């Protein structure tokens, strides 16, 4: 009976509303939002977690200043680095021209001659807007000097005197001394920043030409024809270091064994040179003595010269790399440059050994260089020249005098390796100028030339290295860039900016130092060992690792949300329909 009684209330419920409530389109109660909120909260938590996930799988890349790098590269490549130069001409003992207008005229004519000598497009490292000033001195300058050409060291004394008398403001000066009693006109360039022309000067045109040539060819271009920079004459390593490695080679120690006192010669001759090259490179010096090191080229006996002779055609084959173990340097780091200086002592079978030049003469130096490698000098031992001496393999030591001679040749070779000439004469259209030798290996104006050229070269290298680095980093967006690289790039850019500032102010040494720093930092950043393209995450790798975890789950969550949303909308529609219909 309960069933009947139960069935009755149902029927009684349904009977008052037989066909109005259609469960498909209407419902009486508000739809519940619990399920919707549940699914939405799960989705929401996923969405909140998404940025954390992306952050945790992010490739660590230090931010490199790409725009700055590009602007620096563009600036360096488009505008060659030019330095301001100031030139000064002093005329002594010219009674005819002693008015200010003639001084201005002279200055103007020198300036216009110089303009003709400069190339149309200025080369990097040469002078930009230069100024020429003229002083007419009526024989007051050289009053304290005893002028006598026949004295020894006349040139050196005059040089020292002029250095003490002229103002030290970095100007390049030519002093023209007119002496009626001296016939020949000589031009000499000193060890500092001045030169002089002395003698009986008659032709003003020629004089102006000569002065302009000294200014341009000597002080600006360094004695070379054009001032262009060749990469094979820049032997400074990428980290700003050069190691000079001096080797004494005994070809056959059964004949004689030679040793040398390197310490003393280093203190006397090498230390000033190392000091002079300080702004250009950090120079280290090493030495060793080797035995059993024959050369690999051949020589022949020349009866007329009574000596063994090898020609310039044999020079490329002289260095016997199989037996000469020269590259055993411990001081040189990975990116330094090592220059080898070799003293070769021939065996008794080939002694004395001389180098014959193509014109038939014997070489005075018996030496040669190979750019970016170093230099070789053949030294014939005195034991060879007196054959009567006993051939016991005694240990001889090279005398200090011999060592000095050899090291002077080495200084000449070092100059050649840096792109200057080893001899001390400059020939130009209007005549010969003599260059005075400096005990520091390089005269002050030569150091200026080298500083300018090295600044230019280093900045160009820095610009291209940083450009390559930025291109590399941008082309591999998933490669890790460590903080250290970012810091090195930043410091390199700062050093480059400092170099440009120094160059515009005309401070040669400081600009060389900062350009060297800029280059070495840029190279350190580019050659950082962590940037190997085999070890970066490709996009496929990342996708393949993370998608099996997240993709199925996230899809299910999304679909659940969508389903619940759809259901809620449907029920809401039904409820609204009922509400509109009923009541």
């Amino acid at each position: 009976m309960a069933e009947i009684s139960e069935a009755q209330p149902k029927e009684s419920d349904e009977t008052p509303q037989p066909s109005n409530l259609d469960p498909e389109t209407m419902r009486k109660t508000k739809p519940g939002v619990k399920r919707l909120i549940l699914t939405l909260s799960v989705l929401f938590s996923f969405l909140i977690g998404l940025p954390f996930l992306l952050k945790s799988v992010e490739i660590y890349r230090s931010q490199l200043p790409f725009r700055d790098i590009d602007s620096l590269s563009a600036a360096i490549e488009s505008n060659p680095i030019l330095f301001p130069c100031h030139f000064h001409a002093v005329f002594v003992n010219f009674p005819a021209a002693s008015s200010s207008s003639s001084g201005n005229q002279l200055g103007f004519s020198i300036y216009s001659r110089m303009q003709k000598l400069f190339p149309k497009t200025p080369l990097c490292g040469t002078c930009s807007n230069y100024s020429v000033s003229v002083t007419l001195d009526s024989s007051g300058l050289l009053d304290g000097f005893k002028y006598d050409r026949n004295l020894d060291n006349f040139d050196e004394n005059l040089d020292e005197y002029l250095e003490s008398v002229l103002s030290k403001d970095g100007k390049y000066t030519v002093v023209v001394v007119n002496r009626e009693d001296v016939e020949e006109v000589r031009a000499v360039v000193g060890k500092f920043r001045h030169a002089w022309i002395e003698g009986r000067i008659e032709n003003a045109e020629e004089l102006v030409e000569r002065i302009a040539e000294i200014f341009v060819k000597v002080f600006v271009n360094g004695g070379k024809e054009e001032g262009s920079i060749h990469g094979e004459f820049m032997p400074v390593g990428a980290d700003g270091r050069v190691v000079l490695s001096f080797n004494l080679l005994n070809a056959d120690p059964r004949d004689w064994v030679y040793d040398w006192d390197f310490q003393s010669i280093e203190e006397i001759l090498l230390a000033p040179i190392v000091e002079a090259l300080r702004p250009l490179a950090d120079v280290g010096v090493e030495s060793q003595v080797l035995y059993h090191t024959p050369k690999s080229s051949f020589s022949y006996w020349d009866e007329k010269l009574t000596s063994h002779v090898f020609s310039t055609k044999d020079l490329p084959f002289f260095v016997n790399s199989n037996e000469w173990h020269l590259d055993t340097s411990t001081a040189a780091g990975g990116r330094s440059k090592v220059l080898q200086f070799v003293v070769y002592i021939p065996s008794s079978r080939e002694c004395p050994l001389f180098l014959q030049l193509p014109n038939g003469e014997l070489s005075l130096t018996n030496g040669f260089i190979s750019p970016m490698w170093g230099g070789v000098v053949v030294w014939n031992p005195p034991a060879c020249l007196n054959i009567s001496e006993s051939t016991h393999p005694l240990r001889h030591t090279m005398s200090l005098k011999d060592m000095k001679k050899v090291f002077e040749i080495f200084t000449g070779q070092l100059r050649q390796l840096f792109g200057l000439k080893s001899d001390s004469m400059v020939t130009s259209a209007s005549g010969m100028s003599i260059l005075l030798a400096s005990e520091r290996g390089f005269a002050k104006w030569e150091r200026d030339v080298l500083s300018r050229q090295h600044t230019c070269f280093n900045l160009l290298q820095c610009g291209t290295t940083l450009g390559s680095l930025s291109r590399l980093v941008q082309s591999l967006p998933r490669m890790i860039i460590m903080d250290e690289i970012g810091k090195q790039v930043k410091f390199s850019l700062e050093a480059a900016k400092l170099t440009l500032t120094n160059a515009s102010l005309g401070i040669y040494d400081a600009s060389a130092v900062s350009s060297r720093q800029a280059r070495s930092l840029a190279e350190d950043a580019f050659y950082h060992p962590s940037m190997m393209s085999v070890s970066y995450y490709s996009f496929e790798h990342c996708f393949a690792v993370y998608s099996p975890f997240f993709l199925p789950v996230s899809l299910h969550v999304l679909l659940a949300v969508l389903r619940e949303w759809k259901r809620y909308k449907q029920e809401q529609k039904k409820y609204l329909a009922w509400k509109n219909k009923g009541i």
Partner: protein
Amino acid sequence: MESFNFPKAVAFLVVLIATNLTGAISSTVSHSTATMHTNNWAVLVCTSRFWFNYRHMANTLSLYRTVKRLGIPDERIILMLADDMACNARNKYPAQVFNNENHRLNLYGDNVEVDYRGYEVTVENFLRVLMGRHENAVPRSKRLLSDEGSHILVYMTGHGGDEFLKFQDSEELQSHDLADAVKQMKEKRRFKELLIMVDTCQAATLFSQLHSPGVLAIGSSLKGENSYSHHLDSDVGVSVVDRFTFYTLAFFERLNMYNNASLSSLFNSYNPNLLLSTAYYRTDLYQRRLEEVPVTNFFGSVMETIHTDSAYGALSGKQLKSGEIKMSSDSSGEDRQRILENSDVKDQGSSLNIKDQQVTCPFTRTLSTIHERVEKVKDVDGLVNFGLVLVIPLLAVSSWLSS
């Protein structure tokens, strides 16, 4: 239905990101500087280990001896060997390695300086050597210290295949990795000219992706061809030298230091009938004519020398009239010419067409057409990304169906 818009939007976004990532920014900066040729370097790599790959180590050591004899010093040679032959327990002649059955020359005599040996010969180390990115502590003898005037010879031998070279039986060097390394070397001006010699199977594919100027490459065989060993030494028990290297060495036996043969005579000296493969070389990236390039430009060591006129200092008073003298190796004539069948086969799909018509089985026919189509696809990265992106809607469909 509107519920599917969301996955479609996601798919679209992912496609966008994918195409951005696959577009590589490549800009080649070529500086044509007329720098002097200052020195020569050689990087000799033997990529195999184990006793039956004896011939690869003999190849590399033979080339090492040749290059040293012609003048390149140890400090400018980087030799990478697994070095497990000479003292192998299966070696009947301990501490000796031969490249000919007459046993005339012991390659492993004195004066062999191996820079990377054993398990140090890896793809990573090889690429580090080429690009110069070493740790600070790596000594100078293990670095390639070339500058912008250097000519570099890279010789690789071992087992290779289509666009790869196998290293030590565990990893591969891909052709695009090599091309990338050469590109970075060129950008950083680590070489003036580069000669790549590869003696493996399908060697020519290894340098197919090179783009940098100044690179010359020669491989011992084309795609689809094998490179063969020359002869079996019955005493040692394994093959002792490969054909390509054997004929290369034969060419260099005729040379000495003062002699000058040109590169074109070297390349023309390979006879396909004797090699049993086609020695293919590419010169499209190299500006100079091969007849003018002496072999010693890469294989020897001719130094550029300049005479020192005078000393600087007290001797400077004495002047010398003679000027500077630059020595450069000039190339003389060539050897007798041999005609080399140099088929410039660049298109790779043509050989399959002939097979198609002959085979009647429909299955293999469809398979070969699919293979052809796949070969023609240029943008492989895009295809892969498209496939990955396609996963998402498939997944959506399957989860919808399962719910």
